[in-house]
């Protein structure tokens, strides 16, 4: 087994794990992490493609490596946007729950007095 095959198998495992997490886990943050795992698997696969396509005495085909850089930027922005949404949702949910909690507490106090 050469290194390209080994890394190829690694990337397949990462893609599988990421896809599993993305579909099975209900929590948004875990889904986002699973997406990043899946993305890493795909980027590693680009690396494998680059290694296999090496020619003319080069260590690797430079095109997939250039694509990976763009891919990482895109996936970084996607993660940032998704995390921003999760944070905002968390903030709103907290406000709602704390508001409800305060209201029910006030009602309890009223009942006692």
């Amino acid at each position: 087994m050469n290194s390209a095959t080994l890394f190829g198998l690694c990337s397949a495992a990462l893609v599988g794990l990421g896809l599993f997490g993305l579909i099975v886990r209900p929590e948004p943050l875990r889904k986002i992490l699973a997406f990043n795992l899946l993305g890493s698997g795909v980027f590693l696969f680009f690396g494998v493609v680059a290694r296999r396509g090496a020619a003319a005495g080069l260590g690797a085909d430079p095109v997939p490596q250039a694509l990976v850089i763009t891919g990482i930027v895109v996936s970084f922005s996607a993660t940032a946007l998704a995390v921003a949404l999760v944070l905002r949702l968390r903030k709103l949910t907290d406000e709602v729950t704390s508001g409800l909690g305060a209201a029910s507490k006030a009602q309890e106090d009223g009942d006692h007095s």
Partner: protein
Amino acid sequence: MSTTITTTASGYLLVLAIMWPVAGIMLSFVTSGRGVERLACVVLPVGFGIAVAVLIAVAQGGQSQIYVVGDWAPPLGIALRADGISAAMMLTTAIVMCATGLFAQGEFSQPSDLPEARSPVVFWVLLFAIWSGLNALVLGSDLFNLYVALELLTFAAVPLVCLKGQKETIEAALRYMLFALIGSVLYLLGAAMIYGAYGTLDIGLLSERVRPDPATLIAASLMTVGLLAKTALFPLHLWLPPAHAGAPAPGSALLSALVVKGSFFLIVRIWFDAMPGLLSFAAAQLLAALGAAAILVGGALALRQKRLKLLIAYSTIAQIGYLFFIFPLAAGLTAGIAWSGIAWTGGWLQLFSHALSKAAMFMAAGLIAEALGHDRIAELGGIGRRLPITMLAFGLSGLSLVGVPPSGGFVAKSLLLMATVMEGQWWWATVIIVGGLLAGGYIFMVLGRLLGSSATPLASLAPVSMRRELAALSLAICAVLLGFLPLRSSDFLQIGR
């Protein structure tokens, strides 16, 4: 195609089409919050002019317009290419954008007596970004370049859903985002496999080299499944209703009319341009079967909705289903079979007429909700008398969705119906007819209420601007006029293939 690809005379227009809205975004950051709206008054008409110029250039040249970026021919560089369908798609985008801009001028403006708000600025920036992303998507001819365009489109579409900032809309946006993330990463994986197998991502070069081996088919399937999630084809449609119903009216119009069509366009690019002839009979039937399920399930669910915007969102799911009949019915397009051309024209007409009528319908629903303060279907009684123009817009766009002649939707569906008969795939004809009946059911259910007697005094309704009503009406009229288009333009849609 073995000759080197060079830039054509009008090729610079393609760069302009992508960069002009981007210039709008850049200028939005340097003008004041109030200036953005005035900026849109310049960006939108000029962008429309560019789309018309591209359409004329493609029609007059009778061939694709090409721009080779940096004069590096593929496979080293990347090319932008406008064929018949991309030019038509650009014009549809431009029409919907301009009407949406006109409609949003009231909703997303900054009154001079109030402090500047953030959401109007964000709305206009997102509108420009969606336009640029869509133009890049229809003009791209490199699978990785298309991935970037697809992501730009998604990143502009997701915040549009939660512009109101309520909890439900942010939940909807997050769900949309997660579906979109799965979709884009699967697409990217497919693109990586294609590069590994062929050493190029250029669509033109791929179409010459492509062969039906397992690696190619797996790659193409991954890309297709990813794009189906973004197109919201049944059963990957779960994110669409809350997202499209939760967005503000002009946002819903853009999302439902244009954004979901972007990823569909890419599926067609893959199967008809990058890998012609590779879609097997069974795979095409599977895609159409999902489309048929979308028509039936979407239509049935639309009938059960209590809120108008949700009803329209479910109707989008159903109408997207029709588009997928293009795969089995137009499969012989490269072989030059006549009825494949009919199905091809019908499929694209369905896309354009749905874009126009659905945008009009979401705008009309937005105005109704604004006047009444809610959009519960059961309590819409009599609003048609107070907002006759809005009701006319809703009615006309509804007729196009149902497929009543004369309208774009009628011509599209009748062409598809004709193709099913000629192709001998009658089973899709039954679905088209039942889908029309379902659409008739939910449209007339709403229209009946709009025309009915009112339970509440109409005088208590909030005022609605006439200009915004006319923006919705003009789109609905465009959707109807599409039905009068001479069919010579079917040749136009086949330019560049």
